[in-house]
């Protein structure tokens, strides 16, 4: 059963030049214990689409659609009900732990705040739980770490502390926005292994936003590829990455250096640049960069339709159908 069902999510943000549609009708669901991957380049609407779930959008944002979490619409929650879900049932980890951690509060204070606010846990018990959490994310000498400040830890440790804080109230859903992008690969590997363990041992569901298809490949069960505010392709990670059907997914993969290549071969860049939200092309937003575009692609927005077991595709020409 799905833990989260997002239907028809549409986000418009106000700008000086009027309203701009950032997320343009997105549907997906996240199962229990599932790592759901959201892939795409900068500006594709990945981050805004999850900030909308947490109601963390800037003032004046207009959100349409539904996000059913355990029978309740996250987008309709207000006040107390919202605070109860946000931070307890659904927690979030951001790209840069140096900005998401408070620089002047001890790690212990930040770890126990959630517990004391959401669950009314007494100080002593909260501290013990904080130590457990730091042990869980493998911070050496957790008792000492409680009294430390963010700047005293390395980038990888900070991100693990941010994850520990997010896990404090045992959320069912963790939203992780580029959690390893700022980290070195050896440290990234540790974070990915941690998320994988939490999913397996605690049944944690994760929405993982990343532009790195390598990261996606190693941990996500299911991937949705975003382009210009819409999902263009989605499916189980293994099939989607091994046999991409959308020309954009294929182009993203072709742009990566291949580990078994002998080097020196040209990487295949996608011609042009992703459209800005203000100037999204009509029809399929990818058509100006697509070698397979037909006349109808310039006019009609392609619907995201099932093409095979668990796979959805928004590309009527479907040039890689047999691949």
């Amino acid at each position: 059963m799905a833990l989260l069902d997002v239907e028809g999510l549409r986000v418009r943000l106000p700008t000086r030049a009027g309203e701009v549609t950032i997320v343009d009708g997105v549907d997906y669901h996240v199962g229990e214990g599932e790592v759901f991957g959201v892939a795409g380049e900068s500006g594709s609407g990945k981050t805004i689409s999850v900030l909308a779930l947490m109601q963390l959008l800037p003032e004046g944002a207009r959100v349409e659609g539904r996000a059913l979490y355990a029978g309740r619409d996250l987008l309709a929650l207000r006040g107390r009900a919202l605070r109860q879900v946000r931070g307890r049932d659904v927690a979030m980890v951001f790209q840069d732990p140096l900005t998401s951690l408070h620089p002047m509060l001890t790690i212990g204070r930040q770890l126990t705040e959630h517990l004391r606010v959401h669950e009314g846990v007494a100080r002593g018990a909260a501290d013990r739980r904080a130590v457990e959490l730091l042990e869980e994310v493998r911070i050496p000498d957790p008792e000492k770490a409680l009294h430390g400040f963010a700047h005293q830890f390395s980038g990888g440790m900070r991100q693990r502390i941010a994850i520990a804080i997010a896990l404090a109230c045992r959320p069912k859903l963790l939203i992780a926005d580029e959690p390893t992008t700022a980290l070195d690969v050896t440290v990234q590997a540790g974070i990915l292994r941690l998320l994988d363990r939490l999913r397996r041992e605690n049944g944690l569901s994760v929405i993982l936003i990343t532009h790195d298809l390598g990261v996606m490949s190693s941990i996500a069960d299911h991937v949705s590829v975003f382009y210009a505010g819409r999902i263009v392709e989605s499916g189980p990670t293994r099939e989607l990455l091994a046999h991409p059907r959308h020309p954009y997914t294929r182009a993203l993969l072709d742009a990566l250096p291949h580990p078994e290549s002998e080097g020196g071969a040209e990487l295949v860049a996608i011609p042009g640049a992703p459209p800005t939200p203000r100037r999204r092309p009509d029809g399929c937003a990818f058509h100006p960069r697509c070698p397979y575009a037909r006349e109808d692609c310039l006019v009609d927005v392609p619907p995201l339709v099932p093409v095979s077991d668990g796979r959805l595709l928004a590309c009527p020409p479907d040039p890689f159908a047999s691949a």
Partner: protein
Amino acid sequence: MSLLEARDVEVVYRSRGGPDVRAVAGASVAVDAGQIVGLVGESGCGKSSLARAVVGLVAPIAGEILFEGKPLPALRRRARSRWEARVQMVFQNPYASLNPRRTIGDQLADGLALRGVERSRHAATIAELLEEVGIAGAGAGRYPHQFSGGQRQRIAIARALAAEPAVIVLDEPLSSLDASAQAQVANLLVRLARERDLGLLLISHDLGIVHHVADAVSVMYLGVVVESGPTRAVWNDPQHPYTEALIGAIPHADGAGTLPEALPGEVPDPARPPSGCRFHPRCPYVFDRCPTEVPPAYPVGPGREAVCFLRDPAAVVAAPTSGGDTT
């Protein structure tokens, strides 16, 4: 003689009240004309400090920087000579390195003026340089914010080219870019090295992309180069345990669902480096010599060196081989 060479360079940062940080603790790297050399390592390994020392942005306390065989002095108050300006640098973040208030044409013109190109020829030369990096020449009158991140990085490269360099040192030129823009810049670098016979020193934390574009690679860990050699050989058969760990940690977008290998422990504080081999507290193959002796660079193949006792030909211990399988 290499075109640009750093020999046994040491860079030390003094900090008030704390111990001095030896960010580069005796590292050497060399670049030939037409060659792309990758300098790879993780945060805090000293690769950017070494790059800055190479172009003279920081003065090393020991070692020397040689350009065309002659010492390249560190930056002083007066302008660099035309000879010195033939070593150029491109920075990680083109949003910060380009001046937001000047047109890109004006910024490229600085390099032309430096090498005495007549004003009447500026416009044509600027257009050529922009075309060379894949930007329409008509864009010269526009400002940096009117371009995407990938375009800006290519403009930053064009600005370096305006000075007609022999060598460009690029500090993480790809890491702020999306995959497609990264591919464009990577292809551009290869083309520049081949067509202009430029030497490129490419600093990167991303061994995957370096493997793709660099002819040779040096791997740094905590201020020292632990392995160097032709890229393909190093990638296929790493001889230092750290290189092996770095390659094993790269996730591959093959859909196989394999978790990358994590390296235990943390990068130590460069102000208090471990004794002996600096990698020994995290090394899966550590043995009794490692914490006590500092390993020298052992030759491990044509043009290859590894700073690891496992590669000591005189050692009697049965050394585990690191094999070429990295998947």
